[in-house]
């Protein structure tokens, strides 16, 4: 054990956990990293490319190295940072990316081959043969190099989402964030305070600085208690704000039960979308390391992390408690680490300071103007090589803290194209003024990293932010705290022969950057993609700025001239499951059910998706072994007897007003104002560009009342376009619109026996051809008084009606029609038979109205009225469209055994099959029980004059060519006698 005294862990309780199957103990308040270090475990994983032994580098979310897989089976979570994993009893973790035991990784051979694996190696080496890349090279490389692996199993956990609205979002619960939340909370503003840690306090928890001569934890506890007492303040702990989006919207993930052994029915995580009028970014700073040869050995970590482990978690990050710790620094922070360690009786081997004028501030050996040039030890640090005043030294130590200064965490301020700016006095990037609207950086992330600076700037940021939205706030009394000015000098890496790691997670070294420079991959964007620097789960939090500095050194330019670091969401990795908000499988999206859905289920219908709708596709009967059998039977039954089909999904729009007729005249290409009351007319609508976009029927119920139907797919679009026209194009017209799609259950009753069947349910309504002819409509009642609407329209080409009742009666009416029509051969049919019937009749549907066709192409050119104007009418007459000669035709195979395939393209027999000779394509095809062969509809050049001609349909994907005869598009009842009968 390498535990020290004190710290913020609860030693009254012991938590058991395992790492690679070995049992350890820790305490509440520990992270997995602190608990492992407390047990003397330094080796936690293997590196990405070279399989080098790696240990923990940091004490926070920036961790590049200590990535483990938590849990097992379907709950296995790869690439979890041990530094932010809250320890719980029973936690089990395994290390990643090694073959054989972690301590003796067989793939460590990669490290010996490292001269071959420099940046760009893969790009250059595995270029040919080309075909080998996907099948051989890439799988082999991926197997050897990588992070954790997904379980491949469905995620068994549940997730949640939510929305928060506040005046002020405070991102980060350290000194600056707490001061900001306190200021805003006392001012009565609605405040959300989010912090990724499980304990508020941020860096204050890791330092020994006193506030008003008391431990910082006293102040934190008092502030937290006050904030929790305020109803206008919400504290979200374990919550990472991962992205800044438009209009003051932030994405955040709350880890609700990740830290619990048993979630107890809770969701695992919640995705919060936070809309904040203003925000204070108090995200702190990330310490820089100083690359030197072999600086990636377990035991070498950031100096600030060593302080955090010692002070907060009471751990010395060494293998044995009496191992001394050394410090390598270019600033005063390193000396503070030494003092804190000494105060906890950890031996300090030496402080190596790059500054020649450095002075010791405690009783430890100091090498001023010196640098660390190498490290020793196999899977853990045993000694470092130091070069000072021209002399080399080897210093025995079990851990080395490296302090290269601090990089403000500008990430969330740069998500919105806010480019950070370089401050020479700080030798660091800070958030630019004019970053995300309404965001006020404070504390270390704004370059005010002293404790006093953080407290003051946090409170001021909150006050200034609230002032912008008219909420006056007074600065609270803040405690007195240390106020050492932030002084950072430029010392970016130790030049030398060995490999010095810049990016631990991606195994990118200073040499790789030099190679990128030689290969002219100098802009930072090229540097990143060439070397993979800054990629993967840590997104280069500990690497980017240092790499930029190295490149600047090579190019001889300044850092800001070389480039800036810019970040995109997410700040840290976010599980796709939580982004999905918890809806998976059947509940992935809303489902719409027709009013007769239960009836169709009872009949064993097979359903198909039509947008959000579930529609009955066909109704198999016992003994039917193939869907075609069922569909053929259904289609024949409609032509011979009577069929029933739920057509509720077609859009219905109620149009009222004294100008309703004029309005519809402008919406439809054909005239509607002249439609008589009690009559229905087929209509087509054009887009503004003159192409067809929807068709349907329009029924006139009264002088000032129409009912428009649309296709299922365009129900929403047509309604939206009509609303736009009403409100924006012609606000002077007296028109009112409302959708009634869901309000009415609508059932198609089609077939020669349709009239006889309907007569059995209507309440004394005259259905005779004289009283209610083709294209008539009327209000009526059915089944003893149920309000209904009847339309005599036909999609199948048969005598047909559509009857509508309030949706709640749809199921009962369908069952009634089925029960009462048995002797008439009543048969339910689904969308498949519906399609067969309409192809046989030559009626167009979505496949023909695909947005690239004109009214003329489908044979309805005459419908585009020239007697009035309508949307798209003039554009439909433009030269490019008017010249279009492809026309809708019917197609039948010359050999009746052949199949017509939708999507096939049409050519003249014997012609080359090229784009230049392409004469059209097949839009719809089916087997027609009426015709007795496969049939189709398609667009063919001059098709209206080519009836009887034999052409070729080519389906190059399947290598098929079929000879087809051109026919009229009506395969059944071309004169339309049946539907008028």
């Amino acid at each position, binding site marked *: 054990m390498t535990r020290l005294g004190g710290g913020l862990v609860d030693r009254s309780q012991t938590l058991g956990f395992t790492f690679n199957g070995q049992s350890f103990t820790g305490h509440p308040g520990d992270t997995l990293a602190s608990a492992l270090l407390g047990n003397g475990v330094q080796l936690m994983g293997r590196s990405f490319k070279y399989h080098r032994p790696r240990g923990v580098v940091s004490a926070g979310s920036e961790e590049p190295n200590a990535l483990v897989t938590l849990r097992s089976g379907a709950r296995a979570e790869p690439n979890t940072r041990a530094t932010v994993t809250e320890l719980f009893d029973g936690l089990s973790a395994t290390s990643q990316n090694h073959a054989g035991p972690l301590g003796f990784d067989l793939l460590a051979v990669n490290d010996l081959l490292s001269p071959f694996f420099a940046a760009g190696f893969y790009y250059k080496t595995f270029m040919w043969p080309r075909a080998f890349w996907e099948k051989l090279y890439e799988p082999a490389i991926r197997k050897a190099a990588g992070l954790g692996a997904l379980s491949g199993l469905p995620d068994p956990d549940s997730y*949640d989402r939510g929305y928060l*609205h506040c005046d002020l979002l405070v991102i980060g619960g350290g000194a600056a964030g707490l001061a900001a939340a306190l200021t805003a909370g006392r001012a009565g503003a609605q405040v959300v305070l989010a912090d990724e840690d499980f304990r508020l306090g941020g860096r204050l928890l890791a330092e020994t600085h006193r506030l008003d001569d008391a431990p910082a934890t006293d102040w934190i506890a008092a502030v937290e208690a006050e904030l929790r007492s305020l109803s206008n303040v919400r504290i979200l702990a374990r919550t990472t704000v991962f992205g800044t989006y438009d209009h003051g919207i932030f994405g955040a993930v709350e880890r609700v039960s990740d830290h619990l052994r048993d979630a107890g029915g809770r969701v695992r995580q919640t995705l919060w979308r936070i*809309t904040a009028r203003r925000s204070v970014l108090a995200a702190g700073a990330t310490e820089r390391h100083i690359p030197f040869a072999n600086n990636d050995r377990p035991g070498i970590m950031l100096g600030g992390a060593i302080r955090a482990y010692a002070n907060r978690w009471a751990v010395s990050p060494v293998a044995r408690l009496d191992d001394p710790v050394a410090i390598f620094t270019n600033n005063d922070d390193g000396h503070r680490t030494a003092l804190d360690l000494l105060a906890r009786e950890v031996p300090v081997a030496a402080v190596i300071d790059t500054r020649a004028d450095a002075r010791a501030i405690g009783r430890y050996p100091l090498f001023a103007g010196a640098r660390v040039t190498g490290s020793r030890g196999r899977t853990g640090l045993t000694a470092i090589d130091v070069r000072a005043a021209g002399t080399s030294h080897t210093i025995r130590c079990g851990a080395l803290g490296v302090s290269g200064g601090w990089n403000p965490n500008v990430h969330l301020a740069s998500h919105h194209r806010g480019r950070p700016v370089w401050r020479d006095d700080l030798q660091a990037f800070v958030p630019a003024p004019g970053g995300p609207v309404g965001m006020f950086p404070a504390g270390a992330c704004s370059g005010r990293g002293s404790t006093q600076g953080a407290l003051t700037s946090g409170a001021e940021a909150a006050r200034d932010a609230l002032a912008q939205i008219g909420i006056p706030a007074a600065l609270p009394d803040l405690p007195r705290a240390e106020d050492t000015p932030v002084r950072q000098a430029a010392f970016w890496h130790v030049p030398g022969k060995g490999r010095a790691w810049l990016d631990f997670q991606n195994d990118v070294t200073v040499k790789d950057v030099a190679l990128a420079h030689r290969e002219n991959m100098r802009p930072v964007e090229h540097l990143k993609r060439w070397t993979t620097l800054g990629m993967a789960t840590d997104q280069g939090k500990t690497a980017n700025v240092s790499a930029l500095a190295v490149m600047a050194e090579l190019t001889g330019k300044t850092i800001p001239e070389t480039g800036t670091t810019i970040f995109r969401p997410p700040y840290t990795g976010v599980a796709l499951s939580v982004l999905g908000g918890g*809806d998976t499988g059947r509940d992935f999206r809303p489902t719409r059910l027709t009013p007769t859905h239960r009836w169709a289920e009872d009949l064993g219908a097979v359903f198909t998706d039509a947008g959000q709708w579930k529609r009955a596709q066909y109704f198999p009967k016992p003994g039917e072994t193939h869907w075609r059998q069922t569909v053929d039977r259904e289609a024949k039954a409609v032509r011979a007897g009577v069929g029933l089909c739920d057509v509720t999904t077609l859009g219905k729009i109620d149009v009222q007003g004294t100008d309703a007729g004029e309005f519809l005249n402008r919406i439809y290409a054909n005239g509607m104002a002249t439609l008589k009351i009690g009559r229905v007319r087929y209509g087509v609508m054009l887009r503004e560009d003159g192409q067809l976009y929807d068709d349907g029927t329009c029924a006139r119920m009264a002088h000032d009342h129409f009912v428009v139907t649309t296709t299922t797919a365009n129900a929403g679009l047509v309604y939206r376009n009509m609303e736009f026209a009403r409100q924006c194009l012609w606000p002077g017209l007296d028109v009112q619109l409302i959708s009634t799609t869901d309000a009415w259950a609508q059932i198609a009753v089609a077939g020669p026996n349709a009239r006889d069947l309907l007569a059995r349910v209507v309440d004394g309504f005259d259905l005779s051809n004289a009283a209610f002819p083709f294209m008539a409509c009327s209000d009526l009642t059915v089944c003893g008084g*149920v309000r209904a609407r009847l339309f005599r329209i036909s999609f199948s080409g048969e005598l047909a009606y559509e009857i509508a009742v309030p949706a*709640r009666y749809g199921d*009962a009416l369908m069952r*009634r029609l089925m029960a009462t029509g048995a002797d008439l051969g009543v048969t339910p049919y689904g969308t498949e038979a519906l399609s067969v019937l309409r192809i046989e009749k030559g009626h167009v549907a979505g496949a023909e109205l695909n947005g690239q066709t004109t009214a003329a192409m489908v044979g309805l050119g005459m419908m585009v009225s020239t007697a009035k104007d309508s949307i798209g009418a003039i554009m439909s007459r433009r030269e490019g469209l008017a010249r279009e000669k492809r026309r809708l035709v019917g197609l039948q195979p010359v050999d009746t055994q052949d199949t017509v395939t939708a999507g096939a393209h049409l050519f003249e027999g014997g012609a080359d099959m090229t784009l230049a000779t392409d004469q059209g394509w097949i839009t719809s095809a089916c087997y027609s029980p009426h015709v007795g062969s496969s049939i189709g509809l398609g667009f063919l050049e001059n098709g209206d004059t080519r009836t009887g001609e034999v052409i070729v349909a080519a389906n190059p994907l399947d290598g098929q060519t079929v000879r087809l005869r051109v026919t009229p598009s009506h395969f059944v009842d071309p004169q339309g006698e049946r539907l008028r009968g």
Partner: protein
Amino acid sequence: MADLAPLTALGAAAPRSLEAGAFTLTERPDIALASLALRRGQIAPILDGLTLPAPGAFASGNGLGALWSGQGQWLIAGEGLAETDFAARVRAMAAGASVTDQTDGWTAIALTGDAARLDAVLERLVNLPPDALAPGRATRTVLHHMSVILVRHDRERLTIWGMRSAAGSLWHTLETVVRRLS
């Protein structure tokens, strides 16, 4: 007398209800609904003493409820009147206006619970600031990719109006959230 038996939006003869902790969820197929849109130049009528509410608001009285649903447009609700020709009644009260039956266009689900928990439920459901969900407010919004209207009658009572055809998905969403928070 009609001899067809109606089904509720959730597909059963009787309305569905659920108790989960302090919450209750109840399907309300008895509420009739009609849209009322003013003709050009028409002054908003007063319905049996009920003044039609301003944007974002809900008003009720004399067994009727009204919520603003667009410029010059309201939805009028009548509890217990779903089996009547409610649109005809509204048409009679609002002479000259365009009235359309909407009873079966929507499904109403009533949600009750203690005020604070109801707020927590709403946080999980809709992306609206608390003001838009205060008592007396009616707001059209999106809930799990579905278009809905939320009517907050008082701190403890809410009606969620959704598309009738999507009633199953809406109920599933509401049930999931209230069970988690109960």
